[in-house]
């Protein structure tokens, strides 16, 4: 593995005239594969999610300006590239995590990239409720069916309960004591029990509204960027304003937590994606 990863990095260095950066987890013990890697600028990042997002890491090491490019590859793919150049065989075997509250036994699986979803989830889930199968993680993955394939860029499959049940106001809704409601705000008493575990479903937990609450997005958005203003610029398709507010430094996934906490239930990642697509169409 060490040799494959190193050889992958050597290939990446040939593909770019710029430097190659390696972002590592600064909190847990770093694997020798990464610490022994040669010819890369290594940076350790520690903190809460979304510290693992490349957008955050780039923003805090060398922020992107208009007209600049940064290519990102995840660690397993670096090893796959290296393996190809070492052996001449394009071997897409990789490890993916099977996770989520509806999985009987969460575990790692060795698969071929693009494997059929049923081979991963069939028989592995609890079947207690309708299930949502996600290629990727719960915050920015893609909704899939058992008769589909795991996404090329995804290293995780998540199975969650569908939230397709109405919630009565006094028992589970907005007037309830909310002892089972997970919230980043302090509007339900559960904020007093930070270690409580939840079985989160896919219910929107509210209805789509205009922005009302201010200051909540900034708490989960570790960029020197005004998230709400940037989202509004994307909604109004104001390209100049989007550029000025730093649209080039973000990807939709960087707004995943903003979307999670948003009281007004706005599909923020969609809005940012649409903004980026518009810029790509108009300016490049």
């Amino acid at each position: 593995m060490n040799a494959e990863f190193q050889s992958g990095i050597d290939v990446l260095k040939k593909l770019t005239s710029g430097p190659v950066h390696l972002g590592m987890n600064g909190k847990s013990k770093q694997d020798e594969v990464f610490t022994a890697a040669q010819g890369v600028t290594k940076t350790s990042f520690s903190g809460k999610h979304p510290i693992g997002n490349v957008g955050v890491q780039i923003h805090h090491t060398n922020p992107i300006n208009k007209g600049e490019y940064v290519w990102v590859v995840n660690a397993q793919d670096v090893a796959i590239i290296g393996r190809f150049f070492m052996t001449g065989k394009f071997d897409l075997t990789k490890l993916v995590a099977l996770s989520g509250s509806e999985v009987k036994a969460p575990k790692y699986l060795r698969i071929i990239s693009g494997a059929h979803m049923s081979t991963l989830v069939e028989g592995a889930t609890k079947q207690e409720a309708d299930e949502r199968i996600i290629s990727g993680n719960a915050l920015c993955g893609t909704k899939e069916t058992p008769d589909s394939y795991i996404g090329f860029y995804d290293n995780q499959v998540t199975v969650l309960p569908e939230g397709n049940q109405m919630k009565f106001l006094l028992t589970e809704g907005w007037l309830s004591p909310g002892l089972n409601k997970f919230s980043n705000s302090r509007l339900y008493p559960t904020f007093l029990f930070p270690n409580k575990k939840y079985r989160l479903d896919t219910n929107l937990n509210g209805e789509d509204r205009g922005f009302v609450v201010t200051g909540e997005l900034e708490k989960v958005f570790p960029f020197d960027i005004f998230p709400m203003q940037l989202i509004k610029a994307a909604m109004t398709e104001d390209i100049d304003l989007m550029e000025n507010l730093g649209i080039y430094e973000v990807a939709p996934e960087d707004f995943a937590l903003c979307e999670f906490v948003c009281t007004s239930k706005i599909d923020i990642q969609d809005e940012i994606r649409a903004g980026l697509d518009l810029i790509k169409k108009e300016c490049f």
Partner: protein
Amino acid sequence: MTQLNINKVKFLEKQLKKLEPTFAKGGKLEKLHYVYDALATFAFTPATTTSRGAHIRDGVDLKRTMFIVVLALIPALIFGMFNTGHWHFVAESGNWNLPYWDNVLDKFIYGAIKVLPMIVVSYGVGLGVEFIFCNIKGHPIHEGFLVSGMLIPLVMPVEVPLWMVAVATAFAVLIGKEVFGGTGMNIVNIALTARAFLFFAYPTKMSGDTVWMGGQEADGFSGATFLGDAQSLLSDSPAVNGVDGIMAKYSFMDSFMGMIPGSIGETSALACLIGAVLLIATGVGSLRIMLSFVIGGLAFGALFNAIGVNDYMNVPAYMHLVVGGFAFGAVFMATDPVTAAQTAHGKIWYGFFGGGIAILIRVLNPAYPEGVMLSILFMNIMAPLIDHYVIQANINRRLKRLKVA
């Protein structure tokens, strides 16, 4: 929950689902779809699931947020009812020093009889206007009015006729909010729009010395407020004898507790403080705004104390915080997230000048005894400008980096 109750909930859920096609597109009552939608989503968080992006969502929604604000207003409401009752008996007897805590129940019942109809009218008219408007415009009914409907009666003098509450509420909901697109889109605070409307359309019912106490006043009795008396310090015939006189009539402690005449919900700084604790603990209200609002008020108050060319300027700065609508405005009005500044730095400037200008208007403008309403409305208009400069600083940092690179 008992089995019986679960069955009732299930029954309600079934009935709602049964009715849905009637109100859906093509149904018999499709015109009333949004009314149905409002009532159904009031009782049940809909079964809507996420489709892309974040598959899981925070448990909080706008209804919960608004509900917390209404909860925070309850102390001010309860105390306001009692206080209204007290000043009614004071006015009737003509005895300013009537013992405050006597006949508690009588006073509360009188206050409730006066205040509850105002709340009913405010909610009834406001929601009625929204239901009609939303049906015409074809957008769902938002929950913003849950709070506005409670705020409007609390910032009115008790003697305002019910029809005026109705007209002001209708005006505020239509012109203040719906023409801009509904909750979250308005430029100025809804409740203050209602108050400002009455203040300019029917000034004799919104200030002076006959509107603050319910019922018939005894002969020769003047039912003025602190602000009215303070204003009279600037005239040729002051109602009180200088700063000492006004401080003797309204002690700091009485004013803090709210045992003074004034608009229904605004007299008690203590009740506002209890609300503030709830708002800050839950994170619904911005501590930045409240604190900078108070500091702004104190700073401008101290400035006038230092100048001190007339008796009103010499009213101690801390007194301004507990009389009139200052505390109520700081906690419940200035913090309205839609109309306040939205950036963290902007909130500080917004609050500071909100509090400061309130005192400025009180002391310097003899036409408007209460400056808080006008000051917050003014800062509502200014908030986007403040945010503009905060955001521009961020943009400039980015442009500078681009030039360096």
